[in-house]
């Protein structure tokens, strides 16, 4: 079985990997590259735990083939903090108890960051609809929505 050679950029680093034609980007991230911060909750694009951005576009990495990463810019949860300095969303999620078990947290953070890059002043409804593709079973979403809104407010004040 011949494998496909792919050259891509992940969290700013040029990365090469070999993958089976059928392997999803999620499989590649987790099993080939050891980037297990991206989670698999369903494998069918329904839960958002595997959210990444590809060329700035938010998507479920379980719905994209690894081979399609050729020449793209991929960002995962592992690239969200700058070294020891957490992204404001990451910091706020900890402070406001916006995670319980934490399995959905990477996907929700990637999705929320993608929202704030487009709209730094989202309404509660806009946050709720933007995150509607990210399932969380622990929190009832309340503290997640509040943390995203608070972060946006902080970032507006700082900008």
């Amino acid at each position, binding site marked *: 079985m011949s494998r496909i050679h792919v050259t891509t950029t992940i969290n700013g680093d040029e990365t090469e990997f070999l993958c089976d034609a059928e392997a999803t980007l999620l499989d590649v991230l987790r099993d080939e590259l050891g980037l297990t911060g991206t989670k698999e909750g369903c494998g069918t694009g329904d839960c958002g735990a595997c959210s990444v951005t590809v060329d700035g576009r938010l998507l479920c990495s379980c719905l994209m083939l690894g081979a399609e990463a050729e020449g793209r810019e991929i960002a995962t*949860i592992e690239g969200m903090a700058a070294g020891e300095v957490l992204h404001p969303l990451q910091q706020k999620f900890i402070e406001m108890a916006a995670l319980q078990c934490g399995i959905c947290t990477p996907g929700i953070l990637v999705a929320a960051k993608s929202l704030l890059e487009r709209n730094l002043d989202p309404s509660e409804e806009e946050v709720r609809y933007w995150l509607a593709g990210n399932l969380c079973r622990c929190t*009832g979403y309340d503290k997640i929505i509040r943390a995203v809104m608070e972060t946006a407010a902080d970032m507006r004040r700082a900008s």
Partner: protein
Amino acid sequence: MALDDTKKIKDFKVVGTRPNRPDGIDKVTGRARFGADMVAPGMLTGRILRSPHAHARILRIDTSKAEALPGVKAVVTRADFGDVPDHVADVMDNCMAGAKALYDGHAVAAIAANSAAVARKAIRLIEVEYEVLPHVTDVDEAMKPGAPVLHEGRQQETVPEGLSGNVIARSEFGHGDIEAGLKQADRVVERTYRTGATHQGYIEPHACLATMSADGQGDLWVCTQGHYMVRNVCAAILGMEQGQLRVTASEIGGGFGGKTVVFLEPVALMLAKKSGRPVKMVMSRSEVLRATGPTASSSIDVRIGMKTDGRITAAFAELRYQGGAYPGSPVDMGSMSAFAPYDLENVKTVGWDVVSNRPKAAAYRAPGAPMAAFAVESAIDELAKGFGLDPLAVRLMNGAKEGTKASYGPTYPAIGLMATLEAAHTHPHWTAPLGENQGRGVACGFWFNFGGDTCVSLNVTPDGTVTVSEGNPDIGGSRASMTMMAAEELGIPYDQVRTVIADTGSLGQNEVTDGSRVTFAVGLATIEAARAAKREMCKRAAMIWGIDADAVEWEDGAARPAGPNAGKFPPMTLKEIAAIASNTGGPIAGHHEVNAEGAGVSFGTHMVDVEVDPDTGATKILRYTVFQDAGRAVHPAYVEGQFQGGAVQGIGWALNEEYIYGEDGILQNAGFLDYRIPVASDLPMIDTVILEIPNPGHPYGVRGVGETPIVPPLAAVANAVSAAAGVRMTRLPMSPPRVLAAIQEAARG
């Protein structure tokens, strides 16, 4: 252990604050390692072949073609396990079918291969010859005399003759005289309620990584709510000594009761044993829904009589729960909790445990209670509204308090039900105006709470920081809570303590993370372990000062001379004592082992506003408030999180979620697209009010809070929808087609 009355709320320095959780950074950066995140050198991929039939005799399994496929290293069927002890026989059969496949998705064989692709291919090469049998998936159908029977000879003597062999047991609780009580009533409501089976819906599928050496030593990495349980059950199934199997709990991506049993783990160990290689197994979402442990579906008859002033004269419920393919549905807990919030002279429940061709039910947050509460709280609401009475006032009139003899036997000590009802009654939500097609519902809920076997070891390091080792997977912030209680007791800052979840080789037996027990029982053991360490540190200080240990007390993180003849010495801090521990007798530690009792029952009251679209039957949740007694909220943000999460799971159960089986007995919605749990855009903020009525059984007054929040919402939402739609809803989920049909039927009269 009794409430320590000397510790008043105002004295707490750490308990009651909201520090950042110790696992926070790992979880927001993707570094936290969950079940599927672990690898081992040379590991294989394990995969399971599952029954495509709801009920079938397994006539023959031929694995020869799969075994011959290059890359396949082991194949396992039930024959590999041989006879297992009786107490794990059903668990074994659920993990790997024996003579019959009992539900769609039941495991029948497994393989381990050197790649996922080979594993997928090999599974398709296993040939299974089935004799398909008639099946039954509905609880009322399964009880009928002519129903297809899953197991012969399992019916208990409590079951009268004439019912199907699927009826496993009958239970009865209560006191007084129901018929006499009903005669005193001015009105009796008699209705049948039905609830669908729901799944816990944790986002992390089950996963484990097993190794097994030729000398009989095994290691298991697993996402579970109880790695000690995993050890004990797997050891029994595999014929191992418990001490030879070390189980390490991964971070756990949700459980809600669904990870209190084993599914993959014995199979992974057997594959590892046969292949001589580490084997990793991860379920797909479809496998999680088809073949793990959803909750029971139910059918419940209720008869309640009430006087015109709102006093309940008698209350009866007959509960029928199908718990899937093996005995042990949560019907007894449903029966015992059904009327637990009320002070009743005449009360009785009859419960029926029924098996059917569905996956074996596991615990789901207050197992058995939400559906019972749905039935009872709906009937009480209907009676109250029928008399034009305030439904909260009716509950205040009939509610249980200290000294009430509960329907299931015990007499309550100090409890918080009335406090939640009074808080609800005076909350602005209760009197807020409602618009057209909108309705408000309230309901109460109860859970027993639990203690159980618990071990904690607390170690003082040479630099005077403290580590706490405990044996319960942290599912919602419990490491933070243990750290807080240890810091509180020792009188040192939160950041001077770190709590870890120890593997099974490092502590004695620990019960599963269930029954809302961890903050209570592990907290209690942590406090006692800290007290043991304090006693030792006082002894060391006494030795240095040359006085009696009795003349030293611990206050604000330091040993101090106390009493008239102790002498005057400057206090020795924990750090100072730790630094010279080696010279005063060696390392300092405290530990505590206990079967914790006094968990303290829990009550909550929920209030919800909904709007029902009369043209589509769709329901929108407009406003939601949870009132619950937490005893003492150790970390209030995490208590709120439990209230909010439980309420939203209950909303899902009420409005959307349901296992849908076809005529063929096959699960039709085994994915998150069709088994739709609530998403962010479905919901408003979930407001919370924490009441603190100290639990007399815990030194700080803590009660478990995790389970009660899922008990009231089914009924609260149903009462709100019934009010908004103008028609009483008695079946869950209240999906748009069902609500629309009810509205249209009511309009036709």
